[in-house]
């Protein structure tokens, strides 16, 4: 099963879990599957318009996904979806 790696800022929504195994054939389905288990997770990654939040970057197996195409990217059973969320003070 594909794995979704949860970034530290979002682990409150996943009860501290650092990664979640899900069913899904593309990135969007994987994220929705995490949300089914942990309601409230999906909006942290995807905005109301269905686009990836601008403070989030998505990677599959370490490769950053192209902007605008991220959610449609095909995922296989061995893949790892990683979410990077901006955090900084300033």
């Amino acid at each position, binding site marked *: 099963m594909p794995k979704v790696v*949860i970034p*530290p*800022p*979002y*682990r*409150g*929504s*996943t*009860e*501290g*879990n650092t990664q979640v195994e899900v069913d899904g054939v593309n990135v969007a389905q994987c994220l929705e599957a995490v949300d089914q288990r942990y309601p409230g997770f999906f*909006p*942290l990654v995807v905005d109301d318009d269905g686009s990836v*939040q*601008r*403070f989030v*970057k998505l*990677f599959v197996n370490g490769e*950053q996904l192209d902007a605008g195409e991220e959610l449609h990217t095909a995922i296989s059973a061995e893949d790892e979806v990683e979410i*990077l*969320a*901006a*955090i*900084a*003070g*300033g």
Partner: protein
Amino acid sequence: MSGPSGDKLIYVDMNDQSVDIRDFPEQWKLLGGRGLSAKILLAECDPSCDPLGPDNVLVMAGGVLGGTAAPTSGRISIGGKSPLTGGIKEASSGGQPGQHLMKLGYRGIVVKGQPADAEKRYALEVTGDGVKVVAADDHKGKWNYALCEDLHGQYPATASFITCGPAGEARLTGASVATTDQDNRYPARHAGRGGLGAVMGSKGLKYVAVDPGKASVRQASDREAFGALCKSYTKGYLAGGQMFKTGTASIVPVANMLHTFPYKNRVEGQSPDAANLDGARIVESFESRGGMMHNCMTGCIVKCSNVVNDAKGEYKTSALEFETLTLLGATCAVASWEDVADMDRLCDEMGLDTIETGAAIAVLMDAGQMEWGDADAMRKLIAEIPEGTDRGNAVGNGAVATGKFTGHHRVPEAKGQAIPAWDPRPLKATGVSYCTSPMGADHTAGLIVNPGLAPDQFAWESQKVQIINTVCDSSGFCQFLQPNLDDIRAFYGALYGEEVSREAIHDQGWQVLEDEWEFNRQAGFTPADDKLADCMGQDAVGAEGAKVVFDVPAETIQAVFKRMPAQEELFTGRASG
């Protein structure tokens, strides 16, 4: 070790305005920035001294990698005994002076004493030809931008400046130390926290001018290896997420979602005005107003700094950051980023920490002495701060002073310093950092944005991040570059031609913390001081049904002071501030 050699330290005695240039100790080669400041302060500053008296010591120090070709490595640390917390303080700033000092071979400036005549103003001039103190009475009382405009005409275009605004001259304990931007002109970068601007002002030092002239980049022991490391590191960074490409202000929405965008003196964790305070609005304004993202120092690859123009397309301020939007914005119920931009500029003009000032005004509003969200009243108040009005003095002296002035009970602070945006209730491990950091409530000391962290991990996470950030702040690297300890020791090794082990870098970070904690112990701090204000344990924030307070037990907090065995993530975890 080979590598850069012949470094010096500048000692300035403000009692008689004399300068002494000393050799930089060989054994301190890997001490810079925060670590160097801590070492000097513990050895040479009486921790029980009056922070605004002659016995305090003001340190300005570049990082170990400053002045080299390492990317984003030119930050400067300002250190001293804080008049705000009463403990040791280091505040870091970007801009040019750190790199310029290092290119000239000066690892730091140590300022002692105090002029007999408190009305006199002086400047320190540092060039390739020498160092001297000169009279600067003509610049007395100048706001920072006017001062730097005048200095720009007075000194060569290659000179950068470290300045003290009118708030520092008035010795207000919320005062910052300003440094000039990449073009050496705008005093837009600030070592904001802890009131070190007041220490600079107490020494009669209006500014430091650093002119590197044609001084070259500091060269490593093995130029080829160091150059290759710089290139590969930069390539790796640019291939990554580059999360700060649109500035720290762009994280307002995520902070709001996580209930760490505090509203109305932190009685709530979310602001209804988050969309208007979102940095995305600033980036959108670039198209019509001509602002931009840029780097605050030469050689920076992060480029997180926004340049904010007004509606006429004229420069207003830089950088308008997340913390400022939170404290001068949401926490005071201000609904417009443009109003916050005005106040950011005013704080930069006065030389005031935007976090402390915003927190103080929020206390004033919470006490009923100003309307929530009244940006006009806030602008007037900030402008009156150097005039010495009672209310201005209270706010200029920070949140705790404003709490005393108003008699108001809700003052979110730790060790006398206002809590920054990142809230210790949803982010309890960050709260542990605020309790245990020698710096008081300071997110750059140990930010941990992980609301799902298990309580038994709080102490380790806090100790780990505090060590990483301490080493980062000693290296000259910017925390937003997010280097880890393995990265930093690789750069150190290439710079001096000798491997720096994991154990050695761990030792170094821990020793800096130990030096700082020891300073605070000698200043009178006890474990009873390792706590947050009561309101953080009483006023809950969070989603309905899941509201939280800061309730970490004292034994967890005290565990941070005992060195724990290193785990892999100590060396691979990234700086976070």
